[in-house]
């Protein structure tokens, strides 16, 4: 099958996640062609055809315009699949392209299965197989699900002119907040999730962190609810950590949280739900009420 891969470029750089698209194409045994709004100076290491629009002329984020460019390439190449990374760029653009082509869209694919694509659902607790019934399919792949592959070589570049127009104006980027705590340096991180129940209970999690000589981490809802400051957040939109010990207290294990901590040497999870997806990465899953188990563990450590 012929697959149009949509590369990603941000703040002047080709993003590494672009290579995961080749990982998908490799597994699917597809013939890849790439489209990207990017720069001549940042070509992917790939010997096939690359349709390139200049980011300086088109803007790095201008979905109306990028959609139009993709549709032009689709017309020329007639691919069976159009594949994006499931990222803030991909999930924004993919549905627009899918509707314009009236093609089925399958989001956040984790594996290619006979008869369709496997995707997560119910916050990562369950899986579905989705089968498109249209001749063309738009796909977004889960970040990290397909190993990145650098095919090597220099692309044959077809330059695309900026179509102009578009109804959105990109104002600019805002850098990530300054980090007060550098969790990346911590040897032990004890993180509070929504399962701790309320803001007052965070102190109990912090006490375990202290008893273990580590830092306090947090999942996103705990930060959004202002129970813990943002610079303690672990995950795709927080910090990426790999301590010797990571303790997840009342954290379900959503993919965006796992992305930030799954490389930890040893993962201890405390959850009252033994089916919580955190169990997939945890070395030890304690099935208990976090407010009973954590103080008991802290007390025993103090002895």
């Amino acid at each position, binding site marked *: 099958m012929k697959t149009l891969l949509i590369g990603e470029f941000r703040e002047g750089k080709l993003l590494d996640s672009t290579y995961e698209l080749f990982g998908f194409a490799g597994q699917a045994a597809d013939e890849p062609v790439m489209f990207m709004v990017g720069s001549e100076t940042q070509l992917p290491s790939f010997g096939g055809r690359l349709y390139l629009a200049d980011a300086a002329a088109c803007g790095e984020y201008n979905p109306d315009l990028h959609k139009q460019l993709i549709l032009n390439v689709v017309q020329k190449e007639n691919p069976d699949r159009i594949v994006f990374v499931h990222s803030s*760029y991909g999930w924004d653009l993919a549905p627009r392209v899918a509707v314009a082509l009236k093609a089925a869209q399958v989001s956040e694919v984790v594996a290619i299965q006979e008869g369709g694509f496997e*995707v997560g659902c*119910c916050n990562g607790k369950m899986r579905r197989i989705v089968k498109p019934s249209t001749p063309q399919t738009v796909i977004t792949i889960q970040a990290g699900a397909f190993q990145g592959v650098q095919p090597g070589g220099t692309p044959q570049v077809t330059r695309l002119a900026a179509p102009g127009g578009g109804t959105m*104006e990109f104002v600019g980027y*805002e850098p990530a907040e300054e980090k007060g705590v550098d969790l990346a340096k911590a040897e032990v991180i004890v993180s509070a999730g929504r399962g701790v129940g309320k803001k007052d209970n965070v102190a109990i999690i912090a006490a375990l962190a202290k008893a273990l000589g580590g830092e306090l981490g947090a999942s*996103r809802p705990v930060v959004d609810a202002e129970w813990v400051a943002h610079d303690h957040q672990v995950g795709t939109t927080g910090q990426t950590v790999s301590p010797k010990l990571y303790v997840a207290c009342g954290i*379900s294990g959503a993919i965006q949280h796992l992305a930030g901590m799954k490389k930890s040497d040893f993962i201890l999870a405390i959850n009252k739900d033994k089916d919580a997806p955190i169990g997939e*990465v945890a070395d030890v899953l304690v*099935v208990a009420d976090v407010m009973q188990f954590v103080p008991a563990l802290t007390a025993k450590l103090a002895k």
Partner: protein
Amino acid sequence: MKILVCIKQVPDLESRFKPNASNTWFDEADLAYRMNEYDEYAVEQAVQLREECGDSSDLTVLSIGPDRVVEAIKKALAMGCDRAVHIQDQAVSSRDPWQIASIISAYAREHKFDLIFTGMQSQDRGSAQVGAMLAELLGVSCATTVVGFSCKDNVVTAKRELEGGVKGVMRMKTPALVTCQLGLNIPRYPTLPNIMKAKKKEIIALPVADLLKEESLAKTTSFHPPAKKGGGLLVEGDIADQVDKVLALLKEKTAVLR
């Protein structure tokens, strides 16, 4: 300003999910339902905008689903929406995002909303498709994954959340649609007086057949738990025993306890 907010009712995600008879979705028996978390941020933002614009504005909440979704609708009304549209659909869980977006667009096209709010994704399906598809079908501007929002003189300024905590700021004219991300605001709790007031608000019921004109483009062929990777050790039982077991494991397997 005419405003629409689209909400989905989803099961409590701490539930145990069992496949239904056709093995295409979960069995609905014994599940408790709530408003999709992302949609709570959407409702809050819509209500804030409604309050800013005052009496000249009107805020409709819309949900597609069986009778149970009226619970979620009532919560949105108690948070401050003016009226509700319940699109009655017993088979909502078999619809693909394309059909859901088509149904909403059939309703919205007639009513010409200036601003539409949706969640960034639903927690059970998690497709992150309906919002952007709806905007595309209506031909309006759209910003997804929004963590900052303002609207002045018919110009929306939206802050999109990108990876690693970086944000992208963009502007667009109304009519427009935004999909709301976690942390956009702090959703209010409905107060008792507002819950009482909401009881008098209008809920318009429409059969889905009046609005659904499209076939699905994709089908679910299987619903199952992920293949267990194994490895992890499950520690169950009495708290004191669990503590002892965990301490022994930490001493044996990590270098952090001496």
